[in-house]
């Protein structure tokens, strides 16, 4: 559990998100048949992370870029990404505010928003 977003690193926020993701039964229903690499790229920090989702589970959060077909690519400032992955900022709102960009198929964007809604009840 992240106590203070300001002092937490992005990697810590993503790892915390991974636990919530894997512990949530409704998320598993939502991601049936949805295997993706989610690339999280902070625009103002050097390290990007790849979250691997396969077989109803987020199997890893690893530093580095994995960009192939079917990758969901998220870009924002680090602070914004931390707020998004700790449930402080809805990704749909971040997108509409122009604070985040997501490069993926439309359905993947909807899926990400749905996951955020289920995990955080946003």
């Amino acid at each position, binding site marked *: 559990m992240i106590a203070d977003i300001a002092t937490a690193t992005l990697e810590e926020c993503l790892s915390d998100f991974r636990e919530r993701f894997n512990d949530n039964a409704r998320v598993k*229903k*939502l991601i049936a048949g949805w295997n993706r690499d989610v690339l999280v790229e902070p*625009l*103002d920090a050097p390290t990007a992370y790849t979250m691997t989702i396969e077989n109803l589970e987020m199997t890893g959060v690893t530093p580095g870029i994995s*960009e192939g*077909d079917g990758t969901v*690519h998220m*870009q*924002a*400032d680090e*602070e*914004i990404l931390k707020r998004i992955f700790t449930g402080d*900022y*809805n990704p*749909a*709102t971040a*997108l*509409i*505010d*122009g*604070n*985040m*960009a*997501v*490069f*993926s*198929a*439309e*359905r993947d*964007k*909807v*899926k990400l*928003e*749905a996951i955020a*809604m289920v995990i955080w009840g*946003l």
Partner: protein
Amino acid sequence: MKRWFELLFYVTFGAGMAFGMSSFTMLSGLNEIVTGPWVVVAIVLAGLLCAAISSSVAELASMYPSAPGVRTYLKAAFDNRVSLLLVYLYLIFMILVAAVEAFMFALVLGSVFPGVPLLLAALGIIGFTVVVNLYGLELPKTMQIVTTLLLIVLITVLAVVGITRGTQVPGAHDGWEQAAKVPAAIGMAVYLFIGFEWITMLGMRPDSYKRTIPLSMPLAIATNVVAYSLCAFGFWRMLPHAVIVAGTTPQVPYFTALLGTPGPYLALGISFLAIFSTFNAGVMGGSRLIYALTREGILPGWCAKMNERGAPVGGILSLGSLAALTAVVVVTWRLEVLAAVIGSAFVCFVYAAFMLAVIKLRKTRPQARRSFRTRVPQPLQWAIAVAFPLLGLSSLVSQPGPKSIPIAGALVFVATAALLTRWSHARTETSKRATPYRTALEPEA
């Protein structure tokens, strides 16, 4: 994914979104204002203006990649209320178009199966699209490309055949009198290209916004300029003017004149191809816009409801229900041209706002990240931004019949949008979800 495939996907998506069943209705409507080669002049000029606008849209998209443009760009550049008003006008346009598209589909279906009630067919196609979206079914990219290419190639080939077979030649008196009516026709012809801007939400990678997307929009517009122009010219060469303007599906008598009995069947086949991209992507895109507005705290919470497949049920059902209600009105009172013209006028205002947004953001956020900059000179941007609303208004009063009806119709929708704006703005003032606008993608100056 190969770059050429990516470009082809964007171009066919943009062209396919714009090329709907109601495009034929507008070609018929254009013939009410001008005739023959002057329709082509109006289409080409409208295409050029839209290409200039697409350049501004590309710059905005490079600042806010993948964002729902109509809300994000206008919110960034203008007051929240201005942005909301234009967003609501855009949503009204989408609902009107969905109703008109459904009716046009019903008319073509009726030309093949006369026993099918028009209202039932129109509501049936809306219902079908809603169900497809609720199930989260999506057209694969290759299928999207193939259907749009097939549609454009078929239309183009049949148009060329009509042009070569037809016998109509311009009358000696078709000079300045026609030219004077071209501005109103341009306002109406803008409708034929609406939808190209949806490409900006589909960027597959960050650098797509640098070259591929800015290039794909004018290419999509150019593709449609060629197809529409040939089609309009073919209609004029093959069909008497009275037949073109008699109904809102001129493609049916045209294909019948070309092919005989199989003509209406081909028109029906083309309708399915056209509806594939326009209708499905439109409902999905519109529902996502509704979803996003709800997440902002602007619309009631139920509009953001999702199902287990991750489909935005609230947005899909809201949009589908409003489109169905509008279709009942359009089909019952035969208001298809009126609905399309009013919608087109609204989008003229939205497009002008895009152009102004670029000018304003260059002043207020000069340091913001822009991977693409429009090369349209600023005086020309100003001229287009001023001209577009005027073109929209002139097309509103250009149709035969009492001018008060389209004006009254447009005013009713504007008043509705204004009321919704007032209500939504009040909600955003109090909503916990609403956060002060700040662009994180903009590096500190």
